[in-house]
């Protein structure tokens, strides 16, 4: 089962880690909404929908985790580029620590499929 199937079957699984992924990618390089979606897809989340990502950006910006700037585009309306604020980077650090701790526990408690066979 690949990531696309997992996300389609259990969207909540992605919902929990999506802010962390968004903050990580934006920390690496600022992006506008659609570009960020394509970066997530290129990173392995092939099936992720634009309609899942945009509300996360809006929420993180409202909470002061992201800052934005409008950049005129020759192709159409101005693009809104996002990058993490210090509060966003702090949230990202917390999220990474929590994810690592959780992943350790899951790895310990849930044996790999091959080991079960």
């Amino acid at each position, binding site marked *: 089962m690949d990531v696309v199937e997992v996300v389609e079957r259990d969207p909540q699984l992605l919902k929990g880690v999506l802010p962390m992924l968004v903050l990580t990618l934006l920390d690496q390089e600022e992006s*506008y*909404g*659609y*570009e960020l*979606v*394509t970066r997530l897809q290129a990173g392995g989340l092939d099936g992720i*929908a*634009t*309609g*899942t990502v*945009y*509300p*996360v950006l*809006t*929420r993180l910006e*409202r909470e002061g985790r992201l800052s934005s700037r409008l950049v005129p*585009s*020759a*192709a*159409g*309306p*101005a*693009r*809104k580029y996002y990058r993490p604020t210090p509060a966003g980077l702090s949230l990202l650090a917390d999220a990474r620590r929590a994810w690592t701790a959780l992943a350790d526990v899951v790895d310990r408690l849930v044996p790999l499929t091959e080991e079960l066979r």
Partner: protein
Amino acid sequence: MSRTLSLSLVERWRRSWYLQSVELWLDPMPRRRRRAVLSELRANLDEATADVGLDAAIAGLGAPRQLVGRYLDTEPQPRPRWNHGAAAAALVLGGWLYATLFYTLGMLDALDSTGTASPARGSFLGTHVVAISNPSELSAAFSGVPWWPLLVTVLVFLLVGRAWHALPRRTEPQVSAP
């Protein structure tokens, strides 16, 4: 990722319809942020359309109501939906006007079929109607204030618009530790 976007008339209409639907459902969001969200959504929709086509771009966003649900899920507190309230109130008011007109036409028709030349008086949901139908005159006059229809209209506006969300919130009293 900057491709030129060229849309047919039908595609432009579909994009416009989609964004209008989103705007309608986004009613509970504060106006300034709602405009910002719509503006950004339009820009991203155009980018996606230039990349994968309008069908796939809209499919990626999902149904307008579902998309808006994701936006509103993250709102700190619920707000009134004035547009929805106004639309529902307009429907009620329109229904009442239509019913009053229907009632009046019925009176005129009855006068005509019975050959009554004198005025007929009636009352419909608080509106007094005087109808006249004879060879020299065909008229209807209305008077009175239709309180019940107006009251129902206001109630529908407040209920559908969830007006209670506009009330100031009561803050829980803070209990200090001994």
